[in-house]
């Protein structure tokens, strides 16, 4: 489904990686590892089309992602370092906006359920600015529950989460991969992922 051919990325004058090739069929998890500054985030941002690449191709179902444009973005969900939630809106409102923009507007019940499953029952209608870091992250991660995108690109999704939430997120990723989805993630900690096919990519080695 996702194929990367001879990818090269630069930040400023520094070449982070070149001739990077991998191929991910459906039902695969790609665990990107590497020390700080080895280009993990750059790779992920290139994969979602935010960054211009120096050379190489990124193909989704055999077509270049730049040419696919909106069709690719519909199939992809990116979760970056920034949570991407508005601090003046509450959890439900944040989730409603992102679900509508993702093109699958969910009924309010589903949104409440998603936040409930993320362990935010009772916090749904508080502005997210009064929540803790971990809770904000949970609000942002609730998108994973309402999205139908087959490709998840997650940059450090486990940071700031407590052990319960880490387990929950691990389960979510495993379910997604089991269901034939794709996940690309960077993390420094080991994640208990038993199911599905796991590929590892070491950057800057």
């Amino acid at each position, binding site marked *: 489904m996702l194929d990367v051919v001879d990818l090269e990325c630069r930040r400023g004058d520094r070449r982070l990686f070149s001739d990077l090739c991998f191929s991910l069929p459906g039902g695969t998890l790609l665990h990107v590892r590497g020390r700080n500054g080895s280009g993990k985030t750059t790779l992920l941002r290139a994969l*979602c*089309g*935010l*960054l*211009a690449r120096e050379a190489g191709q990124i193909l989704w179902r055999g077509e270049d992602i730049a040419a696919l444009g*909106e*069709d690719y*973005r*519909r199939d*992809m969900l*990116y979760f*970056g*370092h*920034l*949570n*991407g*939630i*508005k*601090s*003046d*809106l509450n959890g439900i*409102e944040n989730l*409603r*906006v*992102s679900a*509508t*923009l*993702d*093109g699958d*507007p969910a009924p309010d019940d589903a949104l409440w359920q998603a936040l409930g499953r993320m362990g935010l029952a009772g916090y749904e209608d508080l*502005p997210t600015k009064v929540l803790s870091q971990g809770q904000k992250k949970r609000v942002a991660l609730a998108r994973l529950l309402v999205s139908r995108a087959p490709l998840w690109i997650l940059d450090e999704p486990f940071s700031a989460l407590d052990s319960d939430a880490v387990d929950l997120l691990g389960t979510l990723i495993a379910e997604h991969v089991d269901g034939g989805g794709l996940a690309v993630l960077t993390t420094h900690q080991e994640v208990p992922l038993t199911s599905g096919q796991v590929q590892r990519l070491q950057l800057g080695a």
Partner: protein
Amino acid sequence: MLRVFLCVLGRDITLAMRRRTDVLTTLFFFIIVVSLFPLGVGTEKQTLRILGPGVVWVAALLASMLALERLFAADYEDGTLEQMLLTAQPPALLVLAKVTAHWLLTGLPLVFIAPLIGLQYQLPGEALWIMMASLLIGTPVLSLIGAIGAALTLGLRGGGILLSLLILPLYIPVLVYGAGAVTVSMIDLADTQPYLSLIGAFLLLALTLSPLATAAALRIALE
């Protein structure tokens, strides 16, 4: 499409309502700048009538500029802008929705305040109507052009000053014809319609081109 447009519009207006000070500062800035001139220049009717249209329009430009900086900056900082551009929605549509919200909050109120302000300049009744009409057509142009500048200066340090330098020259045509329409309306035998039509033409041009240009600029800013 409409659902997405309304969703973003509603979001931005909800956000602004929860931070009302931002909207109110723009309005009060406009009111105060416009009210300072009669105090400084004196109350001679003839002088005020000559100054009035220009002052109101210049103040409208500056007030619109004041709020522009925040148009994309807040969304850029918390990552929501990134998320929006990564959805399957056309970026130009999202931009248009955000600019519409910006105009409803900072442009439209000026239209309704302007006649009250105009009274300080002793403008005749008809001129007030023309001033409202010119602001109604002109202020959306300001928001649309300004959005391009706001997107281009996104993430830069000292972007605010650069934004003014980029955008104010582009505001000149709207200023000339907007203030011109009001001035002309006070002359007998002169027709204001060509002025308003020209601003209308600017509006159509900005409406078609600005969202596309802004969306392109935002993509660059996010790299």
